[in-house]
């Protein structure tokens, strides 16, 4: 590390004011601060600082996402090998999934970080870390067969129009990863929904080639219940891609067709635990999303007249992107309500809306994305009323006295 430090010190003058490469200062700074904690000391105010910074925060979020990512990779392989009817061990399945996702991750990071660096350079600011999380989220919420160019376009669109035009990390109104998904969802609906996109049936880099077996169906569980002819939930069974019924364990572990992030409730709960213990994700938001969802489902159960409305809360929370959205998307501090009371309302309404969209809108099997984006828009309004209560109380103090 010492040699590296020496090298950095040697090249540093080039990037400073007056240096030949000063226009690349943001890039240099990003790499230097990635390698070494900046030795800049406080100029005004407090003389000591807490060790947490933006980098640490983002790294923890990524850490929390890793379990879901790994299970998701395995699931891609599992679904693929089941679909083509080839026996394979766990390791092979995982490698298949890894190879399927890796290019998507690389594309999303290269495009997103490229834009972030360029903008930071242009604004002569430090490179913010926000995209480190968005970059991993984007492939996780897209179908596995999304073409790479679509990921590139969607990422660029989301970073530029959902974040940078608002001022960059910390100023965006909508969740960047969800905007990327929404962009694709509305621009290329055929690639984003239906039965064909959730399981990769072709080979990946020559690995796992084969013909799809008879009786294969790649519909997601929520897609199945959305299109079912069965009128009562008790007559309905969720099935895997070969038609065998899905067990609760399958649902909990996330071993059914879907995007990586929608999959494993277990892995998501591990991530949630990490976020809550480190204090980065708000347990209030998470809990209230689940409360809002459960409340709505129970209400629907009472007035149910079709299978979807009859579906018990448990299935809603286990299937689709509900849990993932609650834990990783709704808790994004920038786009969420920022007051503590506000978080309860914000989360509850997300849960409520997500279930409502799922059940009543046959076009959108997955309501979580739209629910969160919708509430992103309303978060400032919720905060406004929470803060306004404090303001009113302060005004009352004056008038009471007078």
């Amino acid at each position, binding site marked *: *590390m010492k040699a590296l*430090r020496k090298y950095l010190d040697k090249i540093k003058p080039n990037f400073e004011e007056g240096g030949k490469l000063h226009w690349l200062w943001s890039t240099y*700074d990003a790499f230097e*601060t*990635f*390698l*070494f*904690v*900046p*030795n*800049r*000391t*406080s*100029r*005004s*105010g*407090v*003389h*000591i*600082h*807490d*060790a*947490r*910074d*933006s*980098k*640490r*925060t983002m*790294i*923890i979020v990524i850490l929390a996402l890793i379990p879901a990512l790994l299970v998701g990779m395995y699931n891609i392989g599992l679904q693929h090998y089941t679909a083509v009817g080839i026996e394979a061990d766990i390791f092979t399945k995982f490698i298949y999934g890894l190879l399927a996702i890796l290019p998507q991750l690389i594309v999303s990071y290269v495009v997103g970080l490229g834009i972030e660096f360029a903008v930071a350079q242009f604004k002569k600011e*430090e490179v*913010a*870390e*926000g995209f480190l999380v968005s970059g991993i989220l984007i492939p996780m919420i897209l179908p596995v067969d999304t073409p790479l160019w679509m990921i590139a376009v969607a990422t660029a669109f989301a970073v530029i129009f959902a974040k940078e035009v608002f*001022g*960059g*990390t*910390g*100023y965006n109104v909508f969740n960047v990863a969800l905007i990327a998904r929404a962009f694709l969802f509305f621009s290329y609906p055929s690639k984003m929904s239906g039965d064909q996109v959730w399981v990769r049936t072709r080979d990946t880099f020559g690995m796992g080639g084969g013909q799809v077996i008879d009786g294969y169906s790649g519909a997601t569980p929520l897609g199945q219940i959305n299109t079912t002819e069965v009128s009562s939930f008790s007559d309905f069974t969720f099935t895997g891609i070969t038609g065998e019924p899905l067990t609760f364990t399958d649902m909990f572990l996330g071993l059914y067709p879907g995007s990586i992030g929608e999959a494993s409730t277990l892995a998501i709960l591990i991530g949630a635990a990490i976020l809550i*213990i*480190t*204090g*980065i994700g*708000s347990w209030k938001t998470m809990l209230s999303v689940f409360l809002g969802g459960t409340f709505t489902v129970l209400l629907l159960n009472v007035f149910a007249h079709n299978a979807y409305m009859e579906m018990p809360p448990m299935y809603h929370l286990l299937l689709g992107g509900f849990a993932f959205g609650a834990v990783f998307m709704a808790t994004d*501090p*920038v786009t*969420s309500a*920022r*007051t*503590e009371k506000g978080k309860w309302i914000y989360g509850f309404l997300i849960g409520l809306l997500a279930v409502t969209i799922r059940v009543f809108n046959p076009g959108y099997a997955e309501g979580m994305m739209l629910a969160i984006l919708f509430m992103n828009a309303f978060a400032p309004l919720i*905060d406004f009323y929470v*803060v306004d209560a*404090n*303001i009113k*109380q*302060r*005004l009352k*103090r*004056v008038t009471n*006295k007078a």
Partner: protein
Amino acid sequence: MANLINIKKGLQIPLLGASEEVLRGKVTSEFVRICPEDFHGITPKLAVKVDDRVKAGNTLFYSKDHPEIFFASPVSGVVTEVVRGEKRRILNIVIKADSEIEYEDFGIKNVSSLSSEEVKQSILEAGIWFLIKQRPYDVVAVPGKQPRDIFVTGFDTAPLAPSYDFMLEGQEADLQTGLDALAKLTSGKVYLSISTKTKSKALRDAKNVVITEFNGPHPAGNVGVQINHIKPVNRGEVVWTLNAMDVALIGRLFNRGRVDLTRTVTLCGSEVKQTGYYKMLIGTELSSIFNGNVTEGISLRYISGNPLTGRKIAKDGVLRAYDSQVTVIPEGDDVHEAFGWASLSPKRYSSGGTYLKFNKKYRLDARLLGGPRAIIVSNEYDKVFPMDIFPEQLIKATLAFNIDKMEQLGIYEVAPEDFALCEFVDTSKLEIQRIIRTGLDLLRNEME
């Protein structure tokens, strides 16, 4: 029985280098320097010239906007230099001190027989009015305005803060006299806040005041937090604030008839070899207590005050006017820590959950430990801000200088020091105290 208020939010930063409760003697220096920048909200006008002789208690300078506010010389001697900075701003006034201090005689006075106006005049004439500060704006109090109430804090919860119990030993009578004097200055009440840990009889059994007991972590000892819990400041109201040590200095004036700005000061911090308490006048050069008594070989930060709100001073710097604490910590500019974001080092301290927690004291340096960012994480400030105010929203309103919003969100109740912990915990490494200070100054210009 005093009212008890429990403060739940806050943070006690576990720093190494707490001071031993031992009085190590008196510190004097050949030159004494007074820095007008300590007295916030004052534009100084010199009352002395170079080579003038002054006695302790004679006026060095006065306030341009309120010429009745004098600023006393803490020592007798000869004014040797007036150091000026940009735009001829006075940086400090240097006095070569006599070996034996000669005091201006203000006459011993019995406070109970004085009128309100006489008490005020006595403090103003003696040049120690600066000890009284006011909210809103957290500036030296304006004598012309009647304060609704006066708030005195009787303990300090800041990191490594000195013990008021210890410092008040021998000054019990002065404290009571000071409190009696304050009681004359307001038609409202004098509120004295003590900690549940306070033992000093002078504080616990103080007369002529309303005592409130506080329990909880820093910033429970901040007078702003206490006011917010006892009786918040509303728009248009003025309250005065002091700490118990400053009250004792005022009491000393009446009991002894002279200006004696001797403070008991704690020398603390992880880089101090022998900590302890010293008696010294404000403006005394500190190099004699630093020499040979601090870690060598690394770059150090000397602070007059505590690590959250104190002022950075040079090694040959002086004790600033309001401080009872001198702290020495590592500067940290010579440290290059690799991969801080992945660090599991037990040397790193965080109040949050992103680092492992150890039950130990930490040696923290002055590094920011990150780069400045936009405000991203929510509910960070709230956890260390025990007032009925939304800190993040108030900071944002102040940044935008939206006066209406600032007023509505409670800008009149706060001082920069109340935001010190927010600044410490801030993931985005913003200079929050400076933001609030600038906001308060702009607001004051706008309003007055």
